């Protein structure tokens, strides 16, 4: 039981880290540009597809990953220049419509280029093993790497946001974008930077999980909605909030699916418990979100003081 808990807690942690990578960029985009970007999830998908293709092409996952990161960065810049730049001063409804259209385009475009069948990326040989935990329990090395890479990225992002000049501008932008523009900061360049950074992080997340998930069209949609839950819980514009909320959502979702039915079994008969558990578990994070919002409508770590 303890072993199972530890295993699922690690899985939840890994899932949470992944959510954080996607949410970190998106929460900055929401917070700084006040832009609702539904198309952030497809950047995650694009990252996964690029790593699949580049790994197959170069024959090496790490080389593929190293090429994917600048490629998604470039892709983010292209999207910003072509589309998002024109949406900043539009109202939310226009942003919803345009980015909804963009999802349709990219999901369908990916399907046309790579086909509808799922692709798989082999786990590189060096990382295909597992490491021992307590007792005879082992944990896949690749998942450990995802956790480590995610934590390293989170640390890097923390240093960037809290201890550099750019980070200072990002935080200032999340609090009051017109004000820092008035103070002489090139806000357009800052916006492009934020967008490119967000695209790169989402693409990196997609690339990292490509070997353990199947790469398929629409894979970005489900993660997008979970990312929204993370951002709402964490507070729009707060990277720290996104980190805490992502781990919370990852753990609650993973542990809930495993232990929900087990806990319920002590309350009701087994078949009813497993049915109720399976029905309730996917709803847990939404209930968590509703509860957080009920007590703190601006999320746990609101970046804007006045996000009423």
């Amino acid at each position: 039981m303890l072993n199972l808990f530890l295993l699922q807690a690690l899985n939840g942690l890994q899932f949470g880290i992944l959510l954080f990578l996607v949410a970190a960029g998106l929460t900055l985009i929401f917070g700084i540009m006040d832009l609702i970007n539904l198309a952030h999830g497809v950047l995650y998908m694009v990252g996964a597809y690029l790593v699949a293709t580049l790994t197959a092409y170069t024959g090496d996952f790490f080389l593929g990953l190293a090429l994917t990161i600048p490629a998604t960065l470039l892709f983010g810049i292209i999207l910003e220049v072509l589309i998002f730049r024109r949406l900043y001063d539009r109202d939310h409804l226009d942003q919803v419509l345009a980015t909804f259209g963009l999802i349709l385009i990219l999901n369908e475009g990916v399907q046309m280029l790579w086909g509808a069948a799922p692709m798989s990326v082999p786990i590189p040989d060096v990382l295909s093993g597992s490491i021992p935990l307590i007792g005879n329990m082992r944990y896949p090395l690749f998942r450990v790497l995802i956790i480590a890479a995610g934590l390293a990225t989170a640390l890097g992002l923390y240093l960037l946001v809290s201890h550099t000049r750019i980070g200072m501008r990002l935080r200032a932008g999340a609090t009051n974008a017109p004000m820092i523009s008035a103070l002489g900061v090139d806000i357009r360049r800052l916006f492009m930077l934020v967008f490119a950074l967000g695209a790169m992080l989402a693409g990196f997340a997609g690339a990292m999980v490509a070997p353990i998930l199947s790469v398929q069209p629409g894979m970005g949609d489900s993660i997008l909605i979970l990312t929204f839950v993370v951002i709402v819980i964490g507070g729009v514009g707060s990277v720290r909030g996104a980190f805490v909320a992502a781990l919370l959502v990852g753990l609650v979702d993973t542990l809930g699916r495993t232990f929900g039915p087990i806990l319920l079994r002590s309350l009701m008969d087994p078949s009813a418990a497993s049915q109720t558990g399976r029905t309730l578990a996917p709803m847990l994070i939404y209930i968590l979100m509703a509860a957080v919002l009920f007590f703190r409508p601006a999320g746990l770590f609101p970046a804007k003081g006045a996000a009423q």
Partner: protein
Amino acid sequence: MSASDLTLAGETPDVAPQRRLSRLDGRGTALAAGLIFAALALLPLLATAIDDQFLLVTATRIMIFALAALSLDLILGYGALVSFGHAAFIGLGAYSVAILAAHGIDDILVQAAVAILVCSLFAFVTGAISLRTKGVYFIMITLAFGQMAYFFMVSLSAYGGDDGITLAARSTLFGAPVLKGNLTFFYVVLAALAGAFVTLRAVVGSRFGRVLRGTRDNRMRMQAIGFSPFRYQLTAYVIAGAIAGLAGVFLANQAEFVSPAYMSWQRSGELIVMVVLGGMGTLVGPIAGAVAFLLLEDWLAQISEHWKLGLGIFLVLLVLFTRGGIAGFVSRITGRGTP
């Protein structure tokens, strides 16, 4: 209809000025609605004349989505509440039919009553939480609640789960299979659509509707003159949810099949597109928008299997290259209310 002339000068930056302007006046709306409903009522004659019964089926499907889009317009157009989870109500309505039918309750009146009750309750609870927030938050939260309902139905394996559930037959009225014929069903849906239109027109023209529109245009001013916007918005949210639930009841009956796909978030996005395409805050616009959108969808689907690509490009271009978004585009081609 002096009511629709009530436009307070907006001072808060969170309302987009162009949204208020592309609205037909009362008489124009009534005329357009009259024409649309007359054309729909005469459609079966055309179907008989050209001997195309499939036309009726398509028209019924379009009217069902028009009913849902109409309900969304109450909160999107008159309340400026961008709800991205409206398809959940269609799904809940459809599942009310399927689940009751699975337990032997086939009567349409009972099913519709349960659907409306369930949707009102869901709208009340989720609306009460969502409406505590605004803007980007509101969009994300309604989306998340929509997904919650979606995943609930996916995991409900007793009623088909992900695969959906097939109905044995259409609903009955006091034991008689009145909805069995496509023609009767067509007129039932048309009557429901017309009834919803008249009801919602009365709602938006009433004092309640004026408060709702006043809140959309200037929330702070409405609060200053003593209104509590929350209660009005929540009531509108519940009404919209209930009507969308009714659309779900019809959709289940039309397809004789219910699946979680009815409530996917893409569906919610499509409903928003229908409302915006036809013109928000007009009530007649969403009906026209649903017709245009579903015909466009059918047409694109005939051209290519990758029709969603075309739809996506259409949406992006429409927003990017029409100043003030689609509403600006609509007001430009109708020659009304340029900012």
